[in-house]
């Protein structure tokens, strides 16, 4: 359904009067296919380009190169007008429920907005229906964001994303700023909505445990590049970085205590990446080759970009 082909994004920062700007690749040559009805997860640490990827996929950012094809239409070449029309089919839920709602809009206004901007009539009873669908009381339509808790706001954000019945939704860390208890509610809600509406999700998170619980396939990113695509949620990792991510999680079971063996070393600056594998500096298996040459995803059913996979 979605084909992401060699997508890259280059950011320049800091340029000024008589000052040279610095450039970095926030997303580097990412290719990915998502089938209809699939839930694909993207994990990676802060700053590895997850959000940038999400924006590129929905063309909220112009890619530096590569394309995104949604059901045969190349989103990257659409005119502004056609793109706006195409947005009916795709939606995004944002990380920060606090700034993703206009403070001046009531919940009803927020939910009406998709119809207004797409010049569609608002079906009667639609708002109540949407609120119910995301588990909010219908009276809440008159409330303003500042009267809602984080979880409630995120539900409103989800309702807004689904208002126009899209088939593809990008979820950019929808639970990162919520309590675990609320996170569980939201994940639960997203799962049931997907079942009801036959949605396709690109689910972004930094929490590998959560992604493994929620997704069919998992893309692991490190400093802008995909390092591994786990074909199933419970597939054994092949990339040492994925392994380290799994090992960094704490199992909530005192009976299964284990020694903590954290990674050493620092994440390199994205502005001057080493020539070889970006992870080489922290990788226990790194060799001279890793430091000199950049590995690419291999062509297996479990693509991994590593010279020494597990």
């Amino acid at each position, binding site marked *: 359904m979605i084909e992401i082909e060699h997508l890259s994004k280059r950011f320049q920062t800091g340029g000024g009067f008589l000052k040279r700007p610095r450039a970095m690749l926030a997303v580097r040559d990412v290719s990915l296919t998502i089938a209809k009805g699939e839930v694909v997860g993207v994990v990676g640490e802060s700053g590895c380009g997850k959000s940038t990827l999400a924006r590129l996929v929905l063309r909220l950012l112009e890619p530096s190169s590569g394309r995104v094809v949604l059901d045969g239409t190349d989103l990257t070449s659409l005119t502004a007008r056609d793109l706006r029309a195409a947005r009916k089919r795709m939606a995004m839920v944002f990380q920060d429920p606090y700034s993703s709602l206009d403070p001046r809009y009531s919940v009803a206004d927020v939910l009406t907005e998709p119809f207004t901007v797409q010049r569609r009539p608002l079906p009667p009873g639609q708002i109540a229906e949407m609120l119910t669908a995301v588990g909010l009381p219908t009276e809440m339509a008159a409330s303003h964001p500042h009267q809602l808790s984080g979880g409630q706001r995120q539900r409103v954000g989800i309702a807004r994303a689904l208002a126009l019945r899209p088939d593809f939704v990008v979820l950019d860390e929808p639970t990162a700023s919520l309590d*675990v208890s609320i996170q569980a509610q939201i994940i639960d809600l997203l799962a049931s909505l997907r079942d009801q509406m036959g949605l396709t999700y690109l689910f972004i998170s930094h929490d590998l*445990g959560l992604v493994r*619980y929620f997704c069919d396939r998992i893309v692991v990113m490190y400093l802008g590049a995909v390092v591994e695509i786990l074909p199933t949620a419970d597939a054994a990792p092949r990339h040492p970085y994925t392994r380290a991510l799994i090992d960094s999680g704490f199992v*909530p079971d005192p009976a299964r*205590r284990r020694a903590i063996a954290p990674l050493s070393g620092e994440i390199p600056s994205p502005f001057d990446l080493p020539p070889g594998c970006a992870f080489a500096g922290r990788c226990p298996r790194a060799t001279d080759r890793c430091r000199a040459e950049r590995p690419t995803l291999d062509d297996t059913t479990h693509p991994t970009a590593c010279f020494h996979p597990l």
Partner: protein
Amino acid sequence: MSALLELQNISVSIGSAQLLDGVSLRLERGQTLGLVGESGSGKSLTAMAAMGLLPLIGGHVSDGSVRFDGQDLASLNDTQRRALRGRRIGFVTQNPMTALDPVQRIGAQIDVVSRLHLGLTKQAARARTIDLLTQLRIPEAQAVAEAWPHQLSGGMKQRIVIAMALTGDPELIIADEPTTALDVTVQAQIIQILAGLVREKGVALLLITHDMGVVAQICDRVAVLYAGRLAEEGPVAPIFAAPQHPYTTALINCIPQEGMARGTLRGIPGAVPSARQYPSGCRFHPRCTRATADCAALTPPLITRGDGQAACLHLPEVAL
């Protein structure tokens, strides 16, 4: 042997709002106590109360007492309390990004502790600082001491904050969500460091976290706070094996476990009530799956069970 830190039935108020209500905790030397609960349940307030820092945010202990090594903090004067902070009690804050003074070099910020509390000279203090940084496996400690905070990564800064907490050779470290703002890989590093301190130096650790995984892995005891009250407290193993309070159960169940099928995560319905509108009776009852009419009416007492305690009307000991 008396506990190193003991909160006896403390209540904390800010202005007219009572934000903590009858919280009791005990922490022995060499032990790690995990303090968990959802956001807004009062974890940080508890830490501030233990540090004697509530006045900073305009609050005070309105009832009960905070005892450190048998001494009631309330009976000490300001100078005496200050002599404890940084010396015998170290503090690690949640966000390492904002915990350091951005306009002072790293070294100076650490040095001041040993100069103040240990009476070291400038050179001796710096030597100690370098020594500590090296112990925390910070590469090029000398250079780091001369660096400005903004030149360091988050994980590095958190290690600096820990070094600062360690400088006075404390008996107790209070760490308020020390890893929340950090990446998972870094988080593991920091937890490992803290756990190592307990193991190697025998300090007591009050670890505030919202990650039940961390609690399960490194804590000896855990205290669960909900809406300003203690829901349950006790040794980690039995609580994880058989939680006494429905809230504890619910919290544990919020974490996706390996092999769980999609759609089985339930979460806790509703949200933490705000301090201005705590529900009557058991404060958890509106969100509790087992709530009855009694739960809304009666405040459950804190019942001691074995080595721990819990506050729920559904405990067999509670006779209605």
